[in-house]
């Protein structure tokens, strides 16, 4: 069994690398570099958020009241669980347990789809309440005790909500696709303890997407004490 593991690894060694260790370190460094670009990509949106939250705080408070804090918190929990199963899946690949790896990664996919499903429910809710920016945008607090004091600028809050969570959801969809690719490759026996960097790298991507949500959740949902649930 040991021989075939190394054979799999040798087959996967690309010609311009001296050895597997160089290939592994290089490809992981490459993924981290890519994640750096993703940080700057999302970072632009966070900068826009920062500027407008400072300028229109009341509008941001009012807009965030319309977020469903329980769905958001559940989604946060779902993503954290998916990160656990992803990390354990990478570990299973390191420990030469391909079947366990595949099972854990499939559960990760399920968590990911669960996240997207809950997000879809939220999006639907916001859509029918005219909370999508554009000509049909119409903000009403729905709470007679707290009429809107800055309804006009809530359109900016919602623009940011849709842009930031939408971009995040797109990255989730890509992530699910990547994990599926790893599952399929794993079913063909592509990974061994000597060659599992694709699994590790997809794991890094997945954790990064989780990390972005860890910031999005408080910034969009928990801006201020919720009045009226």
């Amino acid at each position, binding site marked *: *069994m*040991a021989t075939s*593991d190394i054979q799999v690894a040798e087959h996967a060694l690309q010609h311009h690398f001296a050895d*597997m*260790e160089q290939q*592994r*370190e290089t490809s*992981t*460094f490459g993924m*981290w*570099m890519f*994640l*750096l670009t993703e*940080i*700057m990509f999302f*970072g*632009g949106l*966070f*900068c826009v958020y*920062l*500027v407008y939250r*400072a*300028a229109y705080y009341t509008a941001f408070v009012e807009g965030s009241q319309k977020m469903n*804090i329980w769905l958001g*918190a559940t989604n*946060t*929990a779902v993503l*954290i*669980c998916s*990160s*656990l199963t*992803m*990390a*354990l899946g990478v*570990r299973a690949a*390191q*420990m*030469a347990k391909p079947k366990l790896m595949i099972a854990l990664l499939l559960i990760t996919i399920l968590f990911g789809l669960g996240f997207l499903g809950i997000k879809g429910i939220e999006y639907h809710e916001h859509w029918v309440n005219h909370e999508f920016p554009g000509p049909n945008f119409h903000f009403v607090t729905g709470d007679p005790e707290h009429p809107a004091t800055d309804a006009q600028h809530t359109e900016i809050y919602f623009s940011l909500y849709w842009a930031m969570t939408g971009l995040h959801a797109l990255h989730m969809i890509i992530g699910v696709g990547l994990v599926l690719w790893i599952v399929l490759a794993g079913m063909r026996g592509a990974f*061994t*303890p*000597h060659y599992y960097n694709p699994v*590790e790298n997809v*794991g*890094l991507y997945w*954790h*990064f997407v*989780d*990390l972005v949500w*860890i*910031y999005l*959740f*408080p*910034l969009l*949902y*928990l*801006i*201020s*004490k*919720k009045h009226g649930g």
Partner: protein
Amino acid sequence: MENNQQHDESVVGHIAPASMYVSIWAVLMAFTAITVFAATIELHVFNIVVALLIATIKGTLVVLFFMHLRYSPKLTMVTVVASIFFLFILFGLTMTDYLSRGWLTSAGH
């Protein structure tokens, strides 16, 4: 079979025990509950401080342990720190404009 593969760390990489991942998971879940709870208390300007602090603790745990930064070469850490540094340049220098716009009280601006 498992012996000579598992402990060849230069090739296989560091393998952490499963219990470590589960512990980190538990801490992350706990902090999620704490941050939701903290949002129900009126702390005025400290709401955002607490929320970001908790998010940063959670993020640090994810990066260090789930993403294996703790066991990675120093260059990886440099990459992470560099990205945070330049992000703060973007935020900070942009805000020098927005925060100081109201300072001139003469007819100038």
